[in-house]
């Protein structure tokens, strides 16, 4: 085995997150920055329910995306003080810009897992609308997980994202 093969077959760290609606997703280790219990949410008028809430955190305005409202016909009522994962994404395709922060509501603490490149699966193997929101699929413990595409999710206007479905 040469050096390149050794490099590609090294395990990678990733977070396995259970969102507040029970769906499970995977994010790269570096994408999850903080866990917070949010005590005050604000609502921006005129937006679909999945993207209408936000909160102030360390003097930043953080959008909270409720994927259950986007993916399910029967969205959940969000908790008043949700536990959220504050995640980092790059604005648009401008690599020179500072990372932006967004948030996803959680059902519990994320689990740090180790995955191998060979656990990747085709995006099309994901069910329902997940391929539109994901950049990869991953097989882990005999289950298939979407690897969320944060840049697309947070950089898409609600109209653009809903039109995809």
């Amino acid at each position: 085995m040469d050096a390149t093969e050794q490099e590609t077959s090294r395990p990678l760290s990733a977070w396995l997150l259970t969102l507040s609606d029970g769906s499970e997703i995977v994010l790269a280790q570096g994408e999850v920055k903080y866990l917070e219990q949010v005590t005050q949410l604000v609502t921006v008028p005129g937006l679909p329910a999945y993207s209408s809430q936000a909160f102030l955190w360390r003097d930043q305005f953080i959008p909270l995306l409720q994927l259950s409202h986007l993916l399910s016909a029967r969205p959940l009522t969000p908790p008043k003080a949700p536990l959220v994962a504050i995640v980092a994404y790059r604005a648009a395709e401008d690599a020179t810009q500072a990372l932006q922060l967004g948030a996803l509501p959680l059902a519990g603490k994320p689990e740090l897992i180790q995955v191998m490149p060979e656990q990747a699966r085709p995006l099309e193997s994901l069910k329902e609308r997940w391929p539109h929101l994901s950049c990869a699929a991953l097989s882990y413990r005999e289950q298939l997980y979407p690897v969320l595409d944060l840049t697309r999710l947070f950089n898409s206007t609600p109209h653009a994202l809903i039109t995809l479905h």
Partner: protein
Amino acid sequence: MNDKSDLSLAPSQRSAPSPDDWLLVDAVELLWLLPRREAVHLGEFTCAEEALPACGQVHHNQQSYPAVYWNRKLRLCLPEEGGCRSALIVQSPLGALALACRRLMRLERPPRFYNLPQCMQGRHHNFEQVAVLNGRVAAKVNTDMLLERLPEALRRDTYSQHSSLGG
């Protein structure tokens, strides 16, 4: 913030607005923030016989201004639907219009504005910047954008004039 009546805009009580003076317009479904220098006059709605749908009028200095009420989706509604009886005339380089207003407040300090991320750019509003005041989101007024959204029939009655507040 201070809760101020329309007297805060009366010429006898006004002082030269500083760039740091901001007003909060409570339009029931939406909150607007605007620099005080853009505010011209707060007056009662009147509806002329020939008034167009979704539009009241506010008279000031022998001119009439279309007075409009936007709902949370920035769709024009009858001002009465919003429970507003007055409107604040606001002035921009492109013209003037009157924003339906239930309550007008002067802020004690300039608000902290945040840019909205792409995922919160609504199809109907395109708010550029917002502030959070007492747990509610208030949008910075973009008078030119609002003027563009006025129907053509209303826009032709809207013309520029200098603010009576000296702003």
